[in-house]
C-alpha cells in the first residue's frame, strides 16, 4: 500500500472505488480507513466528486460522444484472413440483425443508462454488471427530443420470472418524458434477493400506451429462462422504440 507518512495513496483509493483491489489489499486499506480520519475524508471526497460528475456532467458528455464506427465497416477488415473473417462475421451477425429488423428499429438517439448505489459509492451499470441485494438503482434516459414529449414505460423481468414496472413505478400505463437534456427517472429501485439476470426495457412511443403488452412479453421472456433474459435484445409486440440493459444479481 503506497502511503505518505503512513497514509493511503490516491491510486490505492481509486482502486478501492473501482473495486480493483485484491482481497488482501482491500482488507488492509479498509482497516486503515477505519482508523485514519485523513484518508477516510479523502475517500469520501473522492466518492463525492465522482457522484457529482455522474449526476451532473456525465449525461451531457454522453450526448456529445462521437457516433462511433458502424458495425458493417468491420466487415472490410479481415479479407486477408478468411478464418478470422468467418469468426468476426459470426460475432457481428447478431448486431446486424438487431439493427436491420424494421419492427424494432430505434429512432433518434435515445439511451437508457443505470447507476447503482452501494454503501455510498455510485457505480455505472455496465452490461452484465454484478449487483447485490440492497443495491439501489437509478435510471437515466438521454436523447429525448425537445418540445415533443415521448411516452415511456420502464419495466424488467428477473431470474425468477417476476415482472416489475419501474417507471411510472408500479404503473399500468406509460408516462410522458420530455427533453432536451437527460431525465433522471424519479425514485430509486432497491434490488431484492432474486439471484440471476435482470433485464430492463425502456419502451417509448409518441402516444400513451398501456403496460399490458409489455407485461405479457416480459412474462414470456421470464418463462424462457435466464439465458434468454441475458441475450434478449428487444421485446416483440410492443412499441417500436425501445432500449434495454441488464445486470446480474448475486444471492445474498
Amino acid at each position, binding site marked *: 500500500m*503506497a*502511503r*505518505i507518512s503512513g*497514509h*493511503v*495513496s*490516491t*491510486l490505492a483509493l*481509486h*482502486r478501492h*472505488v*473501482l*473495486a*480493483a483491489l485484491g482481497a488482501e489489499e482491500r482488507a488492509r486499506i479498509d482497516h486503515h480507513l477505519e482508523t485514519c480520519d485523513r484518508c477516510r475524508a479523502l475517500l469520501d471526497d*473522492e466518492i463525492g*466528486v*465522482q457522484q457529482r*460528475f*455522474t449526476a451532473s*456532467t*456525465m449525461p451531457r*458528455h*454522453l450526448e*456529445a*460522444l*462521437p*457516433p*462511433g*464506427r*458502424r*458495425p458493417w465497416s468491420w466487415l472490410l477488415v479481415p479479407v486477408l484472413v478468411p478464418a478470422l473473417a468467418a469468426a468476426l462475421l459470426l460475432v457481428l451477425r447478431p*448486431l446486424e440483425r438487431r439493427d436491420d429488423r424494421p419492427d424494432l428499429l430505434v429512432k433518434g438517439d435515445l*439511451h437508457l*443508462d443505470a447507476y447503482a448505489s452501494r454503501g455510498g459509492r*455510485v457505480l*455505472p451499470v*455496465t*452490461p452484465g454488471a454484478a449487483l447485490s441485494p440492497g443495491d439501489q438503482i437509478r435510471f437515466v434516459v438521454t436523447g429525448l427530443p425537445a418540445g415533443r414529449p415521448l411516452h415511456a414505460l420502464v419495466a424488467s423481468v428477473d431470474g425468477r420470472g417476476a415482472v416489475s414496472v419501474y417507471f411510472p413505478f408500479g404503473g399500468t400505463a406509460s408516462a410522458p418524458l420530455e427533453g432536451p437534456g437527460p431525465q433522471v427517472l424519479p425514485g430509486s429501485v432497491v434490488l431484492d434477493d432474486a439471484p440471476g439476470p435482470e433485464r430492463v426495457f425502456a419502451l417509448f412511443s409518441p402516444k400513451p400506451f398501456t403496460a399490458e403488452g409489455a407485461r405479457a412479453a416480459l412474462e414470456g421472456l421470464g418463462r424462457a429462462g435466464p439465458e434468454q433474459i441475458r441475450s434478449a435484445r428487444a421485446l416483440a409486440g410492443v412499441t417500436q422504440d425501445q432500449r434495454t440493459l441488464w445486470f446480474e444479481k448475486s444471492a445474498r
Partner: protein
Amino acid sequence: MSRERLRALYVQYAPTIYARCLRLLGDDAAAADATQETFVRLQRHLETAPDGVEALRWIYRVATNYCLNQVRNQRRGAEPVDTLPEPPGRDLEDQLLGVDFARRLMAYMPRKVSTVAWLHHVEGLQQDEVAEVLDVSRRTVVNRLQQFRELAVRFQEKP
C-alpha cells in the same frame, strides 16, 4: 468501436478520470474539459485493458501528463510576481501536501520531472508504483525526484 461500447467505457471510467483531472487542475470546468480530452486519448487503451488496475495505470499516466501540461501552459500567461510559489524551505514534502502550492510549483518544472514529483509527493505513490504507472524504471523515478528537489531548492536562491 461502436457507439454503445464507447458509452459503456465512458460510463465506467469517466468519473475516475474526472476525479484525477479535478485534483490536478482544481477547477470544475477545466476538469470536465480535460476529462473529455483524456478519454478521447485513452479509449483504445481502456477497451483493451484487461482489468481496472491496468486501466487506472493508463488513466494516471495520460491524465497526469495532460493536466500538468495545462497547468504549465496557464503559467505562460502574464503572472504577477507576488503569486509565484513561496520558497519551499526544509519541509518541502509537508508543503507539497497543500495541493494548491504543489500545483503552482509544478508549473515551473519540466513535464517529466513534475509528473514524477506529483505522483510521489502529492498523490503518495511509492517510487515503484510511480515507475509502474509511468512505465519507466525505478532508477529514472529516483533521478527525476532528485532533479525536482534541486529545482525546488533554486526557488530559495532566487532574489
